[in-house]
């Protein structure tokens, strides 16, 4: 299924103030893969995600979704296939009710209202909040907002989910819910985050960004246990893999 492929070819991007955020990044994500995109603050994760969904355009290089090159012209068709979940759900939820928010995408794609209703119900059930459909988004709790934001993307039935920090600012239970949700999706996923324990659970492949360049790209178990690599990129090993803080005993998971 080559049309679910996402390819970045030698991407370069710098901001108007001259800061080079992405410097020659190339990778390919295949159908069904889940990829953790990790890196320190300012490593270029968010910029890279914005390049992938066409919110920014690279100065050099190209993004291919399926076999279609991402340009201003192909953007509408491509965006329908990419679901982008923002870091701050408040940026994504702006309609009077959760229902309207989840229906926003499908309605924009001109679906008739019965189909929209079906999709909204399905998306809300998928994330487990059908009871919140009539609530105002800005009165939800942080965890509820997050899953509502995910539902608002799922209702477009994208081939690929791209998420910016899906577990940031969540309490442990809400975080757990989002993680088990992510594990259940069989979409192709790209998750940018600092939450390395979450990456360990949800992603098989990890791409490490450091100062706008790819420092490593490989299996999660290998990269997340490579203490030297992680520390040189401003990260540290997932807490669940670190030695016991009380007795110092190694866990030896892998």
């Amino acid at each position: 299924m080559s049309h679910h492929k996402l390819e970045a070819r030698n991407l370069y991007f710098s901001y108007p103030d001259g800061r080079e955020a992405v410097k020659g990044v190339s990778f390919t994500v295949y159908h069904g893969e889940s990829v953790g995109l990790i890196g320190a603050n300012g490593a270029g994760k968010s910029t890279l995600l914005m390049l992938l969904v066409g919110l920014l355009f690279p100065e050099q290089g190209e993004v291919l979704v399926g076999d279609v090159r991402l340009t201003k012209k192909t953007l509408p068709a491509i965006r329908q296939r990419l679901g982008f979940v923002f870091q701050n759900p408040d940026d994504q939820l702006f309609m009077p009710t959760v229902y309207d928010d989840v229906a926003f995408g499908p309605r924009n794609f001109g679906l008739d209202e019965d189909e929209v209703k079906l999709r909204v119900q399905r998306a809300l059930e998928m994330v487990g909040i059908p009871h919140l459909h009539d609530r105002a988004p800005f009165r939800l709790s942080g965890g509820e907002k997050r899953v509502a934001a995910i539902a608002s993307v799922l209702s477009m039935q994208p081939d690929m989910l791209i998420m910016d920090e899906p577990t940031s600012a969540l309490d442990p239970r809400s975080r757990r819910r989002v993680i088990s949700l992510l594990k259940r999706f069989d979409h192709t996923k790209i998750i940018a985050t600092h939450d390395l324990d979450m990456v360990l659970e949800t992603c098989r492949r990890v791409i490490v960004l450091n100062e706008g360049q790819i420092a490593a790209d490989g299996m999660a178990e290998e990269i997340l246990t490579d203490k030297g690599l992680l520390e040189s990129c401003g990260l540290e090993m997932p807490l669940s893999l670190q030695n016991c803080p009380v007795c110092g005993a190694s866990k030896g998971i892998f």
Partner: protein
Amino acid sequence: MSNILNSLYNMGLLDDLARKKTFIHRIHPAIKLLTTIVYIIALTSFEKHEVSAVLPFVFYPVFIFSFAEIPVIPVLKRVLLVEPLIIGIGILNPLFDNYSVVLGDIAISRGWLTFLSILIKCSLAVTAGILLVATTGMDRLAFALRVLKIPRVFVLQLLLTYRYIWLLIEEALRMIQAYSMRAPGRKGIRISDLGSFLGQMLLRALDRAQRIYQAMNLRGFTGEYNAGKAPKIRFRDLVYLMAWSLFFVIARTYNIAVLIGVLFTGVGR
């Protein structure tokens, strides 16, 4: 600060009310909009010193309040917010227009009458506007405007302004909180800090707006706001419009208050 928090919470009140399902709520939004427009036109077309003939127009908001199950106090509080403005417009009338009129046994300046007339008319018009939003909801109202062929740029402007208000308040609230935590014992924001405070707020609001716009774009937004199923105008919607318009025209043409008075006392003017 709790005031700001409260108003933030209350912002959603009209939206909540609009979600009720009384028969008033079910009337086609365009019909309700037209009824409100007819009401306001009839109301404002009265002579400037008319008071008694305006009184029957109270019936319309009372009708909506009771049948749409809208709580009176919160709505009146919102009307109260505009009241200083209305008073500002009318307050000089008693000073400039001191031609005296005799009401029963009392002679008063005609300025007071015109002032009272302005006060009543404006308050009723504002109440009708708020009730329209409270029984229709901003998104359906936007739909009604589109039905009436208002250009979508204006409708979108209205809608997004309404949506962004609480974001702006939230942002301001966070900034004020952060400021007051580091400026203990001071009320408000020092004028010398106000420049950068407001500038910051503008920049943050722009950033926020940009991100929301991006989120909308990613979900296929192309400039047309789709509020869902388009209801059809049914026969009973037209009856509603006709009945009210008829009432407004009659109330505008005949002084119902005086007619009722004559009916009960048998004394003409």
